[in-house]
């Protein structure tokens, strides 16, 4: 098992090298003037465009630019992100915990609701629960997240004043930035508890309700559909029929036999979904003014902030490799027929 993990991790630098080399190559299709646009916000600055290009070395050959960047990376510097207005490493450190916290809070409900209702939907095929689940799945698929997000905001913040946008209110803002507040984990809910700030914990939790609900509703649809279809497939197989003929209780057949086999695609999907959420939930972060990594990544791409794009891409590549590793390990857990490393 350890050998398998190490082997997978050894691939990581190659994946990252490939991704960044590809990105660098693609970016060279853009002229230096276009890449300099990141530093030009106003027409009055255009008279000094050449000076900007010169200063940032945008006319140097691609291999030199890439080489310089690799040299920086080797020194532990990922460059400076103009969109985040801070060094890339610092930006990742600043933005990632918020997204990670939101993902964690949304992910487990997504899993529970998706798998639970997916199974119910398959077991009670064409019954009311199946119709309701499928309706939820279809609306979850078809409803754009910004529409759902804004609707939730209008009702639960605009009208009821229950769940505000942002990450905290002004008083909590002052509290969490005070010298006495220690950021143990970067996860604000947890840090509030560890600092003994119960009121601040409630405030932060309150601010996470709507973005987490939006993510839940949008993401659960796919999981529910996949669980339902794989369960239906398993339930129609011979071994289920045999188990039933042998008189095994239906609950045991579903939980111990069919569900265990149906979980393999669900695990794959879940790990990809987890990465998708961690990579950034741009629309949700934008609508709820949630300072996560997705919003930064997209902004960096739109404004051709090359260090920013490379930094967020590196993180995505790292997460992808890690997620694949975790899902491979989980396969072994859910299906004993799979022997990792053999």
């Amino acid at each position, binding site marked *: 098992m350890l050998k398998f993990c190490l082997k997978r991790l050894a691939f990581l630098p190659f994946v990252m090298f490939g991704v960044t080399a590809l990105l660098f190559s693609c970016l060279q299709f*853009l*002229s230096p*003037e*276009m*890449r300099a*646009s*990141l*530093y*030009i*916000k*106003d*027409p*009055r*600055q*255009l*008279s*000094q*465009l050449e*000076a*900007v290009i*010169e*200063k940032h070395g945008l006319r140097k050959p691609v291999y030199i630019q890439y080489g310089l960047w690799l040299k920086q990376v080797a020194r532990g510097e990922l460059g*400076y992100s103009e969109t*985040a*207005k*801070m*060094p890339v490493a610092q930006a990742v450190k*600043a*933005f990632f915990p*918020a997204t990670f916290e939101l993902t964690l809070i949304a992910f487990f409900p997504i899993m529970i609701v998706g798998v639970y209702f997916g199974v119910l939907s398959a077991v009670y095929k064409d019954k009311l629960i199946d119709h309701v689940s499928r309706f939820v799945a279809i609306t979850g698929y078809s409803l754009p997240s910004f529409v759902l997000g*804004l609707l939730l*905001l*209008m009702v639960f*913040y*605009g009208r*009821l*004043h*229950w*769940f*505000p*946008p*942002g*990450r905290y*209110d*002004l008083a909590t*803002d002052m509290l969490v*930035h005070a010298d006495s507040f220690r950021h143990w984990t970067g996860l604000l809910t947890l840090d509030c508890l560890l600092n003994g700030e119960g009121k601040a914990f*409630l405030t932060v*939790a*309150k601010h996470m*309700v709507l973005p987490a609900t939006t993510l839940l509703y949008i993401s659960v649809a796919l999981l529910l559909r996949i669980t339902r279809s794989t369960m239906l497939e398993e339930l129609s197989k011979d071994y289920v029929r045999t188990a039933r003929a042998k008189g095994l209780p239906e609950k045991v057949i579903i939980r111990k036999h069919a569900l265990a086999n149906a979980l393999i695609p669900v695990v794959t999907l879940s790990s990809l979904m987890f990465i998708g959420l961690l990579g950034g939930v741009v629309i949700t972060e*934008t*609508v*709820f*003014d949630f*300072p996560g990594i997705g919003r930064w990544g997209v902004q960096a791409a*739109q*404004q*051709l902030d090359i260090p920013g794009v490379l930094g967020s891409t590196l993180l995505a590549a790292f997460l992808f490799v890690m997620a694949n590793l975790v899902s491979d390990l989980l396969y072994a857990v859910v299906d004993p027929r799979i022997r990792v490393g053999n």
Partner: protein
Amino acid sequence: MIRLILVVALVLGAVPATAAKNPDAYVYLTISDADSLDPAYSYDTASHMLVLNIYEPLFQFDRTSTSELIPLLATAVPTRENGGISPDGRTYTITLRKGVKFHDGTPVTPEDVKWSIQRFILVDRAAGPSALLMEPLLGYPSTRGDDGKILSDVWVDVEKAVSVQGDKLILRLPRPYAPLLSILASWAPVLSKSWAAKNGDWDGSERTWEKHNNPSKQASPFFERAMGSGPFKLQRWDRKTKEIILERHDGYWRGPAKIKNVVIKGVNEFGTRKLMLQAGDADAIYADRPLLTQLQGIAGVQIIDDLPTVEMNPVVFFTHEINAAGNSFIGSGKLDGAGIPPDFFNDKDVRKAFAYSFDYKGFITDVMRGKGTQATGAIPKSLPGHNPKGRKHSLDPKLAEEHFRKALGGRLWEEGFKFTIAFNTGNLPRQTVCQILKRNIEKLNPKFKIDVRAVEWPTFLDNYKSSKLPIFVMGWNADYPDPHNFAFPFLHSKGDYPMTQKFKNPEFDRLVEEANSTTNAAKRKEVYAKLQDLAFDEAPQLYIIDGVRYRTQRDWVKGWYHNPIFPDSPYGGYFYPISKD
């Protein structure tokens, strides 16, 4: 389950929206985060607004006026009458105020003032604001030559231009420069020299200044920290949440501000900003004109409309010599009905025909909801050089046809043309300008074809800079309220736009320079009127609207006023007079 949700919701609690929230804090939601807090580096509205709340310049515009100045760190506004300006207009003597303190309690000295102005010039970052003071004080716009190397005389010139004698600041100009005081009212505010030196910034010596020339943004200690003497001090800039918190400077020489904290936060989504305003979590928000209808009728929210601007936006620019190399915007590149030749807009009749094809009135009424008047030249009505009686184009298809028939030796009408107009994606007014031109011109002759293309800002910029766009639609906001800040970039051959348009008219250049070197207001006005009249005849650009803006705030906000030259006003602006009831 439902009961549980309701219980949780009630525990988490609701705050009534009607009460004024955060009475000690004024919360302003905008769309853009600051770029840098260094006054010599920042050249964007969001940063500059903060700079002028944290630091203080020598003068300030008197409340809503864009012509009357009041002294801040100076004791009086220099004039010829009070001896502050020498008879030849080349020496300014400014007496400095005593008893002013920086946020750390140290006194503001004449040396701080001298050093701050010199630093503003010498930092001279690429595409930065230093040229605004370099031109009047040194007579040239950059500390570096075309090869990027520092010019040999810069230090000598700066020392000669800026000096102190006792409590007086002396500015010596190579030639008279009428807008100098206006520039000093918005730029080069005073920083603490001792704090800067302690934190690794320029120490004021000749030996070290070059090290601080054209720096990277984050190299400056003033990038994310501040030490000024303005009414607010920087408490925190959280770049992660795009939030800046200012705290009242209790030792401010005019007395502390009424509000304790100012929170400026970037919230990109308009719906979220609106809901936060509605709930009372925000006191003022940024919103464009097309969004006004969504803000009307919200209880407790006040709309203040018809606020003047010092801008010219949008403007249609014609490129006289289009760069044809690999240019997809000009079709075949020939006058054959499938393209246009590179010198298409060099023909005055073509430009005039386009000028008479635009529906100015319709644009103002329908797109800008009737807010604004048709511009009568490059200089907006809020500035002294504006000529309200200036000639202006109007939609006149007959005149347009007449000019088209005469254009390019009469061949244009027979051959027809096809080309593409581009605008930067997301800019609705500019998109509409392009569409109006397309519709009206294509109606005149079936052989006339115009495509309208939306391009992202980097692509737009790339093609703009290389003079590939046959027509481009852009705008200009004032750096300082002086007609020169419009006449030069619009009409002088070395100005930002004519350089790209490849447009040069020696008479325009002469008039722009003449107007700038005279301090006689009546004479200046006359010269600017002549310049704009000539521009009407030549039509190198089409000026469309002299617009207004509006502000949205909670009705408990008191004391706010709009000065169109103050950065980000009417949305952000100057926070010192603001209070909350």
